[in-house]
């Protein structure tokens, strides 16, 4: 994603008031949000649309005097709900075989992509596909750098439930994948 351009349209009012906070959060969370949405099954185009809408919602939220605690969890919750509304895309990631998508990943000429070998990738894919939606979502949000409290805000779960879900999901992967 480095160097990739993104098309985003923000109204001038958004830039004028509360712009610093929105801009700062945008810089910090744009990439993690995009990655989360793409991993949920959205295309990059769709993910960028959702990220744009999410930050417009954030602007409206802040302008209306909405709560500012746990704003990272709030942002992911808005993005997550928009992704769930795109049902077709949401279920794409684990409904289709990933071979065509991952073909470039086993290209040994690119050292960064040698991390995952083809066989490992298939087994990993199966292990992740076997997780429940909430387990997968918890792991995705955890991989996005969110704390359990923030994951709970994003998914509407209690923090303790997040902890249990993360633990269960990691155990499943490590057992099936035999790390």
């Amino acid at each position, binding site marked *: 994603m480095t160097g990739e351009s993104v098309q985003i349209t923000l109204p001038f009012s958004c830039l004028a008031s509360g*712009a610093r906070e929105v801009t700062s959060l945008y810089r910090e969370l*744009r990439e993690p949000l*995009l990655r989360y949405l793409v991993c949920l099954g959205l*295309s*990059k185009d769709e993910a*960028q649309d959702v990220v744009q809408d999410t930050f417009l919602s954030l602007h409206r939220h802040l302008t209306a005097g909405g709560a500012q605690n746990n704003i990272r969890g709030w942002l992911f919750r808005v993005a997550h709900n928009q992704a769930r509304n795109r049902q077709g895309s949401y279920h794409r990631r684990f409904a289709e075989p990933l071979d065509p998508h991952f073909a470039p990943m086993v290209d040994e000429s690119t050292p960064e992509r040698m991390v995952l070998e083809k066989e490992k990738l298939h087994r990993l894919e199966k292990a*992740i596909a076997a997780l429940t939606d909430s387990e997968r979502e918890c792991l995705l949000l955890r*991989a996005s750098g969110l704390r359990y409290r923030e994951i709970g805000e994003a998914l509407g779960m209690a923090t303790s439930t997040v*902890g249990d879900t993360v633990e269960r999901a990691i*155990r499943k992967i490590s057992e099936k994948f035999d790390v």
Partner: protein
Amino acid sequence: MCKYSTKLIAWLDRELEQEQMAEMEQHLRECVECRVNIAKYEGASQLFDDYCNAVMAAEPDRDRRRWIPLLSAAAAILVLVATTAVVLRTRVQPLSPSPTAIVQPAQSPLVPEPAIPPANAMRPRRARAKRSQASNWLPLPPQPAVEVAIPADSMFPPGAVPEGVNFVADVNFAPDGSARQMRLRPRLTAIERSTPQP
């Protein structure tokens, strides 16, 4: 099974209270089973992270593809407009004074004798002549009197506008000199810059 086994991942994620964190660290120094499990969970976490990066990297970037239909449509419209203008000009040609007629005032006394322009002034004179002919029979839209290029960075914060996109303002002026209308349109300077030079 070790009684600490259910807290290993929370410890990895630093989600335990401070006292519990210290207690767990003390326990890990003594418990081989938990150390083995910690290594497994760390490995699984790393694999999942790698998977996310792989998904992101493998997802085709359709940003540029999205512009192609728009650019193709714009090019098609330009070709259509140019073709139409050429066809119409060809039809009207007999009615308008030909260049030959212009330099032969005896055959067309109504046409004022043109001054012979210097070689380096041919291009602007041709342009004026075309505009004059066209304005006789083509209802052309008013051309912007002034075109101002505005860097996107001067209007939007860094990162808010795609790299290489700037804006052009077409300004129309009223006869009294005041600005009558302004239209802002994006310009893909990156594409223009990246066009290979012959």
